[in-house]
């Protein structure tokens, strides 16, 4: 169990039960557990959706779509069963928040799924947990078993006459399955390859039924919103960016860890105050603001509010909340190589540009960093990424292309320093740490 960190600026909404033994159902109940679902049972589905919509809660998986809005797309009447899925396939490098929720507060995810199910009229939910999080599956299984034992799940939940089943499902170890339609394929027992859209999951999703799929943190945020009200939650953050979010601080920091901070928290403050600054008083070089797929920010670009809209304006993305801090000992070519190695390894191979593009990027960057680079390689790397961007079947190709283009654009000088057989100028520097 990872040790927990804290900071006075934190506002604990999703993390409020962390470290308090809430995996135990009785502890969870004592800490206001399963109150929100009971309140929701007394509400109409439309009221639940409106409430969540008004809270300004936006998807914590990375895309940042308004959660209540997403729920409202599910048709009221459906010949096929409707489903609610919890996307717990947290795999974005630099991101480590969902695992803490599963570890410390699994019932909050279950309760979030239950409320979402009520809102869209679904009687079946699935909690999909990343394959590598095997130990968390054990915790989730126990939590589900306990909830069933108390009659919170199954037939006639809380005596309401509403039937609801929730199952857990483990992944087989693929980043790609974090993409919602690939997750559904995986859940159906097939290769984890994304689907053609449209139709969108809200209309044709799991097993062909209308499906809501939300990130684990998003769903865990729902019960507090039901209890605290939409205005309370919305006011925690900035306009259109309601509430708090879990930021995963990693890299060259004195106090790395997961902190729950209000949306719109200043990035500079996050690095220097919450994260305790850079060890050894070294200078900041760059920051990856929202997981490895988000374009990197230079040291002079970090005076920015950490919400979806402000980061988009700054040319990057809030993504999944994985903040990776790099100091001036970091070789950006090596960092680019490390990043692309990940995407090359995780590309599902379905479409040409991602399958072939990531592989050629990896091959070229490997040679380039080893000192056999040529001047034209720099343009080729950019060309490869540019020709992947927006042309792949799913966003994984973009996730590989966007940071790569940013590395070349913002650190061309550093690439050039690797030319002419010169050794990597940072060779002795420590490799950046990604939690």
């Amino acid at each position: 169990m990872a040790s927990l960190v804290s900071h006075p600026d934190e506002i604990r909404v999703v993390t409020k039960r962390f470290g308090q033994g809430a995996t135990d159902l009785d502890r969870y109940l004592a800490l206001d557990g399963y109150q929100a679902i009971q309140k929701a049972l007394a509400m109409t589905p439309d009221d639940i959706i409106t409430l969540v919509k008004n809270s300004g809660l936006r998807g914590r998986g990375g895309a940042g779509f308004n959660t209540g809005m997403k729920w409202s797309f599910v048709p009221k009447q459906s010949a096929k069963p409707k489903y609610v899925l919890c996307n717990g396939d947290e795999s974005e490098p630099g991101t480590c928040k969902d695992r803490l929720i599963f570890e410390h507060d699994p019932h909050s995810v279950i309760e979030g799924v239950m409320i979402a199910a009520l809102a869209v009229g679904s009687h079946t939910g699935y909690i999909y947990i990343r394959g590598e999080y095997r130990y968390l599956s054990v915790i989730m299984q126990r939590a589900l078993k306990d909830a069933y034992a108390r009659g919170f799940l199954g037939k006639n939940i809380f005596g309401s006459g509403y039937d609801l089943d929730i199952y857990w499902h483990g992944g087989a170890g693929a980043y790609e399955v974090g993409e919602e339609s690939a997750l559904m394929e995986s859940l159906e027992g097939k290769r984890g390859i994304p689907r053609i859209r449209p139709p969108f999951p809200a209309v044709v999703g799991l097993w062909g039924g209308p499906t809501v799929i939300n990130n684990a943190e998003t769903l865990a945020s729902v019960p507090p919103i039901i209890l605290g009200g939409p205005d309370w939650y919305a006011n925690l953050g900035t306009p259109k960016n309601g509430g708090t979010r879990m930021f995963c601080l990693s890299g060259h920091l004195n106090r790395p860890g997961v902190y729950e901070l209000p949306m719109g928290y200043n990035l500079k403050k996050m690095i220097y105050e919450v994260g305790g600054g850079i060890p050894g008083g070294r200078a900041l070089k760059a920051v990856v603001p929202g997981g490895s797929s988000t374009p990197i920010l230079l040291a002079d670009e970090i005076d920015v509010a950490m919400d979806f809209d402000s980061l988009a304006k700054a040319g990057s993305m809030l993504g999944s909340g994985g903040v990776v801090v790099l100091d001036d000992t970091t070789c950006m070519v090596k960092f680019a190589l490390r990043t692309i190695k990940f995407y090359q390894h995780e590309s599902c191979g379905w479409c040409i540009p991602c399958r072939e593009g990531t592989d050629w990027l990896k091959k070229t960057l490997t040679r380039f960093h080893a000192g056999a680079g040529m001047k034209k390689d720099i343009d080729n790397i950019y060309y490869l990424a540019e020709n992947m961007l927006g042309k792949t079947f799913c966003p994984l190709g973009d996730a590989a292309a966007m940071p790569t283009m940013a590395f070349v654009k913002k650190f061309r000088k550093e690439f050039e320093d690797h030319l002419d057989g010169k050794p990597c100028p940072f060779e002795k520097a420590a490799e950046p740490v990604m939690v």
Partner: protein
Amino acid sequence: MADLTLTVDGKKLTAPAGTLLIEACKSVGIEVPSFCYYPNLSLQGACRMCLVKIEKMPKLQTACTTVISEGMVVATDSDEVRQARKSMVELLLGNHPLDCPVCDAGGECELQDMAFSYGAAESKFMEAKNHKDEQQWSPVVYFDRPRCILCYRCVRVCGEGMDVWALGVQNRGVSSVIAPNKQDHLECEECGMCIDICPVGALTSGAYRYKTRPWEMNHIGTTCTHCADGCKTTLGVRRSDTGMEIVRGDNRDKSGINNDFLCIKGRYAFDFAHSTERLTQPLIRKDGKLSPATWEEAFALAGKNFAEIRTAHGGEAIGVVGSSRTTNEENYLLSKFARMVLGTNNVDHHRTADFPALAAALRGKSGQTASMRDVLSAPAILLIGNNPTEQHPLLAWQIRSNVRLRRAKLYVVNSQPIKLRRQAAGFAQIPAGAEAHAVAFLAGDDAALDHLVHQSATRESLLALRDKLRAETGLVVAFSSEIRGADVARLVHSKFAGAKFIALADYANSRGAADMGLYPDLLPGYEPLTTDSRFAQEWGTLPTVPGLTVPAMAAAAKAGTLKALYVVGANPVARFGLDPFAFSGSFVVVQDMFLTETALMADIVLPAANAYEKSGTFTNTCGDLQLVKKAGEVAGVKSDFEMIVRIADAMGFEVRKLVPFGGGTHADMGQSRGAQSGEADRHSVWLEAHGLEPRMSPFDPVAIFDEIQRLVPSYHVSRLDLLAGNDQHTDIGEAGPGAAHDPNLIIPANDDLFSSGTLGRYSHTLNSVMENKNAPAPSEVGAD
């Protein structure tokens, strides 16, 4: 559906709602390139070649997955789109081995075409290509893994198209690879669809690989000579030391009734033609042994003996057995030769379906027979008996495609849980041999239910099935050879609104043999043996007493009354289990490709050309008439047509009466012919279609085809369409009265997917695939 209007590259175009953008573009001649998109298979959006710019969409969109909408404005040729395509080709070529000079697909490779059209001639990459070793998946399927571009066409055609699901994808990312169902090899129907659908040279054919360059072949579109479905096949031929060798069979141009479908037989089993056991020289029995002889000797001896026997004992002392694999012209000629030259009605062939009964039941009613195309478009299909997956692969393909693409309802009544039940909306498993009872029940006789209740088929389920069938309109009913005689009439007269029928026979021209009157009691077109038949008027006085069937010929030979037997392309000794010594006292002439059980006992054996080595027409089991075109050639053989004429000539018969050659208008196009071959070809098709080409020789089948069209009413089809390579449906309801024959002589061929009578015995491919281990023994499929 309503039509929508959109603009593509500045062109306004209209297409029905629901049309895919890529198809809408194609309809006005705008090609949007693609690898993974393949009509009638599920959409993939994987190759990204078809990216186009659609106004108001931030990103480029795949034309293969985008459904058109009203007012859509599309650019398929902007700089942005061209660059996207170019980069896809660059990425593909990055790891694709550039072994085009030796690759089977070189010259007909879609990746080559794309590189040619969209650039990417320079590689931006320095690193080594990823390599994986080539694999052999079966005797007919090889997989060169690095050449694969992962378009997943093979996976889909095998699964969705064939319902075999033998191919899949293993690993992920750049290590992704197509894999066969049994780890290192395939166990499947060995149809080879995956090979032909492969846009590059990744999947190659065991029969064809590394044999030739595509442009060194001639391509001849003809009709397959195996089962009775009549697939069109394009044979690739090239010169060899013994003639023109067929090296490939496919139907990549998607012409014909089968679109791009072929089974293992159509795609590979042309190899019997090159068997080392082919007869290439006439044999005459001398001192008890068959010894090589010249053609002149053989024809002279056959002619002399037939003439003497006819003069001494009358035509009834001579028997004639025809074939279900020879052309319509040959069968008609044989029928005419027997009656006119030999003066006998002792004419028969191996019957595999009751066409005379169908002709009788549908007499005077046109439009009640289904073509193979109808099977693809009918709203509902009833299949009684038979296992089309094994015996009628094209019929099975048509049924599966119709169910999959048009949501047709399939109803199956069978004694076995045949594979097509997986597509069935209703399946009744009846006891073995109860097909006739099933017909009686479907026709309304509830007493027949007692014979049908079996396993999952309860009274209720059977009654419900019949109710469903009665509610269908436009049903196509295909029935096996167990339905014969009066049962055919009963089925045809069942209360199925607007139903169309197909009698399922077994060989490539079984239907043609029946249509052309290879019966002892029926003339061509199912005409009875009357003195005033149009054939009697045309051919002169004909015998009117019904002749002998094959078993009766053997009995007569044993009794000493049958003095001569003429067998054209058949093996009655093996097929009917005849005692070869019954013919010890008879003069026997056999025309065949191989020394069959029947040929072994002959006095003269004449080496015959097969259907790939001659011209004419075939009629498939549905009645679809198609051209047979000469593709291959083997030195030392003659067509059955020529041999029949030569024997008639040797008998002293005036051959112009047998084959009305000559006549027509001689139209000489002078230098323009050949100089502008495209025009000349069209011109010659037109001339031929209108009967204006002179039939220069008595060996020209078209001279007989003229007569068939004149005298057999159901063959009054468009000659122009036929000669242009299209199928023409002949309607048995427009033929003569039919019936009369003995339906007990219908004997199923019992061939499966990997056997094909005599041809299958000599096909190396059919015998090499491991799935053939359950094939029937040669003795069981001994004939035709």
